[in-house]
């Protein structure tokens, strides 16, 4: 029998993490959470999560940064906003999930070979480079980076799309790509300045 230590010491906390998240626009109300579990009760994906949304909320508030940023939960969230709509304390759980995803990507601590963050990154890159998304390319890239074998399983899907005339290999682009790039650069610069 394998046994695992589950106790948490104070040293396991990253003091100030909760406050930091709650200072982000949209995440303020988390301090009012009463741990009622409505969010988990309505969440269609909670049945697959390692921590329920409610538990994630408490872990954030209690500064257990490593636990939440490495959790599967934040990547399983499909942004359906059911929790945000029903929460009796009007906590924007979906937006908090977004904030946690951003932090996990920035710190590169998401689970290895997990396709969801990879998709998000590829998506962002494509918007950056072309201004528009071409779904076929996007999905192909994600599979190549995470699970090339599964990509074969998707071939059937491609065939179906082809049959119904919905498959295209053309990369759609906007005309003023430099304009978009400049906007993005400016946001980056402003953020860097703010951090400094």
């Amino acid at each position, binding site marked *: 029998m394998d046994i695992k230590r589950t106790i948490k010491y104070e040293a396991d906390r990253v003091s100030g993490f909760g406050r930091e998240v709650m200072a982000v626009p949209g995440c303020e109300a988390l301090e009012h959470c009463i741990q*009622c579990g409505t969010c988990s009760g309505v969440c269609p994906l909670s049945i697959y999560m390692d921590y329920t949304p409610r538990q994630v909320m408490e872990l954030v508030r209690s500064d257990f940064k490593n636990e939440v940023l490495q959790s599967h939960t934040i990547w399983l969230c499909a942004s359906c906003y059911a929790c945000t709509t029903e929460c009796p304390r009007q906590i924007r759980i979906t937006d908090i999930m977004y904030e946690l995803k951003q932090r996990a990507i920035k710190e590169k601590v998401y689970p290895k070979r997990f396709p969801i963050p990879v998709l998000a990154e590829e998506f962002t890159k494509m918007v950056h480079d072309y201004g528009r998304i071409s779904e076929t390319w996007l999905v192909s890239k994600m599979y190549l980076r995470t699970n090339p074998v599964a990509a074969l399983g998707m071939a059937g899907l491609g065939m179906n799309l082809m049959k119904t005339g919905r498959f295209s290999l053309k990369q759609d682009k906007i005309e003023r790509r430099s304009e978009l790039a400049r906007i993005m650069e400016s946001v980056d610069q402003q953020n860097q300045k703010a951090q400094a």
Partner: protein
Amino acid sequence: MSAKKEELRIGFYVCHCGHNIASMVDCVAVARSVEKLPGVALARDYKYMCSDPGQVLIQQDIREHKLNRIVVASCSPLLHEHTFRGATEAGGLNPFYFHMVNIREHDSWVHTDRQEATEKAKALAEAAIRRVAHHKALEIKKVPIHPDVLVVGGGIAGIHAAMTLANAGKKVYLVEREPSIGGHMAKFDKTFPTLDCAACILTPKMSEVGSHPNITLWTYSDVTKVDGYVGNYTVQVKRKARYIIEDLCTGCQDCIPNCVFKEPKFTDDFNEGLGKRKPVYIPFPQATPQVVVIDPEVCLNFKRGKNPDGSPIVSDKCKKTCVEACGEKNAIDFTQKDELKEIKVGNIIVCTGFKTFDAGRVPAYGYGTYKNVYTSLEIERLVNASGPTGGEVILREGKNPDGSPKTPKSIGIIHCVGSRDKKTNIWCSRVCCMYSMKLAHLLKEHTDAELYNFYIDMRTPGKGYEEFYNKLLEEGTHFIRGRVGEVTDWAMTPEEEGKLVIRVEDTLAGVVRRIPVDMVVLATGLEPQADAGDVRRLFNMSCGGDGWFLERHPKLAPVNTFTDGVFLAGCCQGPKDIPDTVAQAGAAAAEAMVLIDRGYVEQEPNTAFILDQECSGCKSCIPLCPYTAILFDEERKKAYINEALCKGCGTCVGACPSSSIVQNLFEDSEIFSEIEGVLSYD
């Protein structure tokens, strides 16, 4: 010819308040500084001015040193102004020759630099010394109190308050808008935590109210107008037409079975719509008074539509078998009209209770969509022996193979419906954890079903309440900590087919669960009555942001309102259970009796008055007064203030364009010299 101006001889006292003041303010230095001011005859510091020796000190000094003004620098006037005015009066001076300076809350408690705090105390003291020189002798007015009391609302709060007063020999008018008194409690089968039968403890009280010689009971009535002030209210009550002459109706109820409608077919509100009644009905067997009502909306003897005065039109088309049955008792009168009564009372107790949260506002729980979702009040009626099913718990939807109605085999009770939720009501309704357990127990008793209670937190703070929780745990009721996400009817597994499925996180186990049940009960929270805003204005009360009537002080004046002579009891002030309601009703009755037995009320003389010759008759002040104390003499074209109504708020004083309004204790000379005093200090 004015009398020679009396020489000023001010006595000044600075209090150490133990360490409270002395640790931050150098009291001796303050006394020494004040001593030198013009008009000051003596200045002393003392450890506790409010103590008996402190008060005696003032009295002695007045006599020995011929003092004619007193200033005490100590705590807040809220605490001890009354004390020191008393000492001043006992020393032989008019109490309004006294003035108080707050150097504790306004100084020693809020500063950290002793030097600066001491200087501030000196400045405040000088301001008071200059002000008190302008003080005048004022008189406290006494207004007699009318000994009768109006109680509004005949729930358990109103019943208990009325009985308490009546038993003490006071005359009471009890006004209830429904055809019977009893309120919510009359709908319950049992009451937590003792599970005593609600009817057994309530109905004796109800019939006592009905027959008490000191109580005038007006049911089916509304208070429509309130004028006057503490001790002297004039109240108008509308007695709605019930088409029955109350004095003649014996309550035999022969009319009901004899109505031309053979079957009851109209929605019965008392049974939460679960039962039916006829056009002529009595809300429930123990109704008080035992007088029937005719509903003109459905009775065949009335036409649809209204007369110009708003009353229904008599058609005389019905065979009126009810009248035949009534016979020579002759109690039925289709021509009855609403009747206005005017009464005089000295005090009013408002006991208008609560309404339950509308469960339809939480669509995720399916009330109104799924027939087998119930509200708690519906279940109260369903388990009640005198309820629509005679106490049999049967489902609204679904039949057994033999066609008989189904009884539930599993029941989920959802707590906090509409409560503790920012989208609806943020407060905890306080009684629903307990009543949910009561209903769980009763449902178990009636059906032997599997019971689940879904709660966020169990709130059982009352005598015997935690023990009741224990009892339920022993009965095997499942308690699942988690606020239910939704109630649906789509099945994922075979055992969910045909059931209502509750999806919830079991937060203690840390897993999401789907639990199929036959019946869902929503523990709806308590809310202010729909017309609470109108009632509040009628009786000149205040509301909190949440809509409950506001008590004067949450701890120390829980049944008083900001209007003297108007008291609160029961759930109109906030959610509470029956024991707390009854305690409050007793307290409100006692507060009213304090005034009645003293016979008069004293009025602070800080009222405003209008300098008649200066008033230009512009009427600017009249709409500004929050207490409607300003009247207008149309003949002389001058405004004047009813001193008994004025609360001394000062609004009109500042607003009068011709500066013709003066307020006692806040005259210009007093205020300006006080300001000069603060500013002149350097």
